[in-house]
């Protein structure tokens, strides 16, 4: 039992995590590539035309995974933030800051693909639909997190302040979502709601699943890459980084 606890904390230290992450990154890239090829292959080559939306519905294979990821990454970020506040592990703060830019990217991609889907379907680029609006607010939350961390020079303080903000945000996300939904139904905005998935054939579901998996693998690989950079930067005066540099020379 104690042995396992020690093991956990062993991997929580940057010194051991750094080489481990380095070994894992290519695996996740490979998986991301395979899943993307399978998912996009099913989605763009095999899946049948949708009866109502024609071929334009194929954006769903990009839009839905991007939206999912943007929400998941925020949750994961808040999870790391909570761990960091509770156990004071250096790694958790670094993971949270490594995830934020990718989460923001997915939120942006979700809005972008949503707009490009909305134009042919509803005739406008933007509707104040509950989902789109919440996604926009999520993007704001990511930007707030990134801006706060960028404004604080001391990395330990940046980590902890960011962690508090992420936790406050994650409590607020459902409140924001339901209030926006309420607001939307009251104002009778869009009659067609985005994400009201067209009655989906099994192939579409599989395609979407694989695309989502590809996005997962992509996010993990990117987060590991970024966390390695953050580790090097922050721990540049420590023994293990110096040993690494001596090796590189």
């Amino acid at each position, binding site marked *: 039992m104690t042995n396992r606890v020690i093991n956990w904390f062993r991997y929580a230290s940057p010194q051991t995590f750094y080489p481990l992450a380095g070994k894992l990154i290519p695996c996740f890239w490979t998986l991301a590539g395979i899943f993307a090829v399978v998912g996009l292959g099913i989605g763009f080559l095999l899946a049948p035309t949708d009866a109502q939306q024609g071929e334009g519905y194929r954006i769903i294979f990009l839009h839905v995974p991007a939206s999912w990821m943007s929400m998941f990454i925020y949750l994961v970020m808040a999870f790391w933030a909570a761990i960091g*506040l509770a156990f004071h592990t250096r790694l958790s703060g670094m993971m949270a800051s490594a995830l934020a830019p990718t989460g923001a990217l997915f939120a942006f991609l979700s809005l972008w693909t949503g707009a490009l889907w909305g134009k042919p379907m509803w005739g406008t680029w933007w509707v104040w639909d509950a989902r789109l609006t919440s996604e926009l*607010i999520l993007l*704001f939350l990511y930007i707030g997190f990134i801006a706060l961390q960028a404004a*604080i020079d001391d990395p330990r*303080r940046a980590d902890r302040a960011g962690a*508090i*903000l992420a936790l*406050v945000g994650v409590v*607020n996300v459902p409140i*924001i979502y339901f209030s926006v939904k309420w607001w939307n139904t009251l104002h009778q905005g869009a009659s067609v709601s985005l994400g009201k998935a067209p009655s989906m054939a099994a192939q579409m579901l599989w395609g979407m699943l694989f695309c989502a998996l590809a996005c997962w693998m992509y996010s993990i690989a990117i987060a590991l890459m970024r966390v390695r950079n953050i580790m090097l930067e922050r721990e540049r005066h420590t023994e293990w980084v110096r040993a690494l540099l001596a090796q590189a020379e």
Partner: protein
Amino acid sequence: MLISIRAVIGRDLRLAMRRQADILAAMFFFIIVVSLFPLGVGPEPEQLRKLAPGVLWVAALLATMLSLPRLFADDHRDGTLEQMALAPQPLGLMVLGKLIAHWLVAGLPLVLLAPVLGIQFDLSGDGLAVLTLSLLIGTPALSGIGAIGAALTLGVRGGGVLLSVLVLPLYIPVLIFGAGAVDATLTGLGPQAHLSLLGAMALGGVFFAPWPTAAALRVALE
């Protein structure tokens, strides 16, 4: 415990009284922003009535943002905040006291000004009453959520703008239900549902916000 809260409130109010210019500036900001809208969109009463709830509420959010950076900054500068953090009473309670003082100084004036400004927008009697009531219920939530942002950005460069970026997205539910309450009254739906949700948010905000705020203050003081 109550005594220490009261002491914090009394002290903050006395300090605020010495700097009345700040309070007045935030109030004038509120008045000016609201008065700009008819000039921007035209004076048709029909249109103004439709815009009124949103405009007044958004202006109230912005006016609150103005007073937030000073919530902890002065106490941080003169070392009072450190004393509070070291005091035997929980820091969260002190923060609660500061929140109440902040609301009395920054939130309550907005509530009192709102009906006068509502008249400019040709709101009916019911509309004015609900507008005032919604601000009365909602502004404590603004102080509560805002305090978290103020504590997080304490002593951080570019604090003021950063504070807006952090806090304004979190204000969205309050804005929706606050303006929605007035809207619902004007369209004859009745504001009860909105107001009770707004009340729940204000209670939640005031009771829960002091703890993350206290945590953020401790981080800033390290």
